[in-house]
C-alpha cells in the first residue's frame, strides 16, 4: 500500500516542496524516472480527488491517465517548480471535472454515490490493526461514502487535510483561498459529515 501522509510538520512540507522542485528540474533534463517518483508521492491525492468527482474507480483511473500525461506535457511551462503540487492538483481537478461532465452527458454517472467506490477500495485494504476490526471498517466506509457525497467545495479540503495531511495554508495556496476560508469550509464539511453519521446511527 502507498503511504499516506497524515502528520507532517511545516518544515517537512517545505522540504517536500523543494524536493518536488528538484524532481521537476531533473525531469526537464531528461530523467523520466524522476517523474514517476514524483507521481508516486502524489498518486494517492490525485486518485482521491478524481474519485471524488467521478465516483467510479475505472473512470477515475482513465482520468488520471489523461491527467498524468497533461502534467508531463505541461512541465516545461511551469513557472515555479517548487509549487508543482498545487499546479498538478489544478490539472487533475480540471480533467476530473471535464470527465465528469462528459460522463454525465453519456449518463454513465449516477447522481448518488456509487457503492462500487467502496467495493473497489475495500479490495485494496491490507491487514493492519485498524482494518481488522469489522465495526471500524464499516465506519470508515460509511464516512468515506459520506465524504464523497459532499460537494467539491467541502470535499476537496477534507480530502487534502484529513486524508493527505495538508495544512490549512497549503490548501489555501492550492485552492486559491485564505486559511480562514479553508477553515470555514472544513468546519461546514465536518458539520455535514457529523449530521450524516449521527443520522445513520440513530
Amino acid at each position, binding site marked *: 500500500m*502507498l503511504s499516506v501522509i497524515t502528520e507532517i510538520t511545516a518544515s517537512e512540507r517545505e522540504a517536500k516542496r523543494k524536493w518536488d522542485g528538484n524532481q521537476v528540474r531533473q525531469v526537464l533534463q531528461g530523467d523520466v524516472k524522476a517523474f514517476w517518483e514524483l507521481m508516486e508521492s502524489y498518486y494517492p491525492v490525485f486518485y482521491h480527488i478524481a474519485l471524488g468527482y467521478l465516483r467510479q474507480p475505472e473512470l477515475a483511473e482513465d482520468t488520471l491517465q489523461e491527467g498524468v500525461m497533461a502534467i508531463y506535457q505541461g*512541465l516545461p511551462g511551469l513557472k515555479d517548480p517548487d509549487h508543482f503540487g498545487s499546479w498538478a492538483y489544478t490539472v487533475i481537478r480540471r480533467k476530473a471535472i471535464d470527465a465528469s461532465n462528459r460522463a454525465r452527458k453519456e449518463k454513465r454517472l449516477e447522481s448518488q454515490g456509487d457503492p462500487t467506490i467502496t467495493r473497489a477500495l475495500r479490495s485494496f485494504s491490507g491487514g493492519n490493526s485498524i482494518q481488522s476490526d469489522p465495526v471500524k471498517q464499516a465506519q470508515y466506509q460509511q464516512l468515506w461514502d459520506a465524504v464523497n457525497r459532499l460537494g467539491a467545495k467541502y470535499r476537496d479540503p477534507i480530502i487534502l487535510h484529513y486524508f493527505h495531511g495538508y495544512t490549512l495554508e497549503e490548501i489555501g495556496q492550492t485552492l486559491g483561498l485564505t486559511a480562514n476560508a479553508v477553515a470555514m469550509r472544513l468546519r461546514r464539511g465536518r458539520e455535514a459529515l457529523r449530521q450524516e453519521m449521527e443520522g445513520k446511527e440513530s
Partner: protein
Amino acid sequence: MRFFHFQKDKWILGYLWNQLTPSAREAFERHLEGCSACRAQLEKEKNLESLLHETGEYMAPEKEGLDDLKAKIGPLPPYEYVEIKEKSSKTPLYRQFAFQSVAVMAVMALVALLIWMGIPRIEPVKVDKLVGKGLLITSINTGVTKPYNRGDRLYRGDILRTQPGTRAVLKVGNLGTIWVQQGTQIAFLGQENSEFSVDSGEIWVQVDRHGNPFRVHTPMGKVSVMGTEFRILIKEGYLTVACLKSKVKLENEYGNVIINQGWKSYAKPGMAPKDPVKASGGNDWRNQVDYYGKQNPEQQKLSYLQLMKLARENYSKGDYADAWKYYAWASVLRPESPRVWQGMGYSSGHIDQIQRAKKEFLASYNLDSDSFGVDWICGSVFLDTGDYSMAEMMMRRMIQEKPQYHGCWLLVGEACMAQGQYDEARNCYNKAWITGVKDCECCYKRYLIDMAYMASLSGNKAELNAYMSKWPKDLSVQSFNWCYVARTYQRLGSIQGERSAWYKYMKMNPQGPFAKEARARLDKLENM
C-alpha cells in the same frame, strides 16, 4: 478575551487545530472546566477528527494502481534539456524605480488628503446599528416611503420612522450619536444635520463635538443643547427632556428652563416647561440596541436561539426571574415571535407579576391567536386580573384539547362563578371532581375554597362547614381565591380570618380587581 457560547463550534475547532491565540486558548480551557456540553462536543469532534484520519489511511489506493497507470501510459519520451524560466536575479528596470514612484505617489496622496480635509462638508447621517426590520424612510425628494436596507443613503430632510420592535442607532456625521426607540419619528434638518425634529417616540442623544448648534424641534417646544447627553421622550401629549451630562435648554413660546445634569423637565402644548425634577433610569433598551445592533442578521438569529435556549433551561429549572430576563432580551431581537411573549407571560405568572403577565399573554395572543398555548397559569393570570370572559374562553379551548384535565374544569368554574353564573360553575366543579381534582393538592385547595364560598352564598351552613373543615392550614392559592376566603369569613363574621385573607390578597395583587373592596373592608375592620 471572552468566550461566547453561540460561537462554540468555531472555538472548539480552533482549539483542536491549534489556531486560538494564547489568551483565547486559556479562556476556552477555563470555560471547558465548567461546561460539560462543550467538553462533550470537543470529545465528539476529536473522535471525528481521528476517524477521518484513519479513513484516509484505510481508503488509500494500492501501489498496483500506479503500476497499472504506468503500464497504460507506456514509456514517456524523455525531455532533451529544457531551460526553466525561473525568476531572474537581476532586478528589472521598473523595479529599480519602484521605491521612487511609490514615494511620489504617497506625497501626492498626502497633499490630496490635506486638501480634502480642509474642505468643509456635510457629514451624512448613517444608520450605525439596527435591531428589527421595521425602519421606514420617507424620502424628501420623492415622497416615497420604503423599508431601510443596509447601505441606503439618508438625505437631509428624509423622515425616519421606527415601527414597533425596531430600534436603531444613528451616527450624525462626527457631531454625535442618536439612539432611536421603537415607535419614533425623526427628521433631519439644518445645514450640518445638527437640527432635527421629533414628532413622537423616544431618543437619546450623545453629542461628541461641541460648538455646533444642536437643536431638537418637537411639537411641544425646542430643545437646545448645551451639554453632551440627553434623552427626549414624547408620550401621551407630553414632552419629557432628561439631561444626563452638562446642561440642556428646553424652551417654547411660553417660557424656558435650563435642565442640569441628572434632572428632567416636562412640557405640553400651550404650557411653559415645568421646573426640573430629579431623573433616573430608563436606558435598558439603549444597551440592548448597542449590543445586538452590532451583529449581522445571522448573528442576531444565533443570539436569539441562544437566549431562547437559556430561557427554557432556566424555566425548566424553576428559575423564573432569570427565564423572564432571557425571554425579554430575546423579545428585543424577535418582537414578532409569539413564543417569546408567551414565555415571558408564563415566567411572570410564576413570580406573581400578574399585571405584566397579562400584558405579555395578550401580546402573544394578538400575534398568533391560533397557536396560542393555554395552561392553568395563563387562565389564572386572566382570572387574577379580572378578565373572566377571556379566562373562560381560553380554558374552554384547553378543555377541547384535554377534557380529562381537572384544572381546566376548575378554572372554567371559577370564571363562571366570578361572572355570577353559579349553575354553570357548579356543573364545572362537578366535572373537576369527576376528573380527579381531589388528587391534586393545589387544585383541591382552590376547589374547597370555591365550594365553601358557593355554600356560603346559598346559605347552606352544613355544606359550608363540611368544606371549611377540610381547608388545609397552608392556604397558598391565587389572589382571587383569597378574595373568596375573605368573603366567606365575612359571611361567617370572622374578623381575624377576613382581615388576614384581605391582607394576603393585597400583598399578592395590589392592582387586582378586588383591591378597592379589600381596602374598604380593611379600613372598616380596623375601626371595628
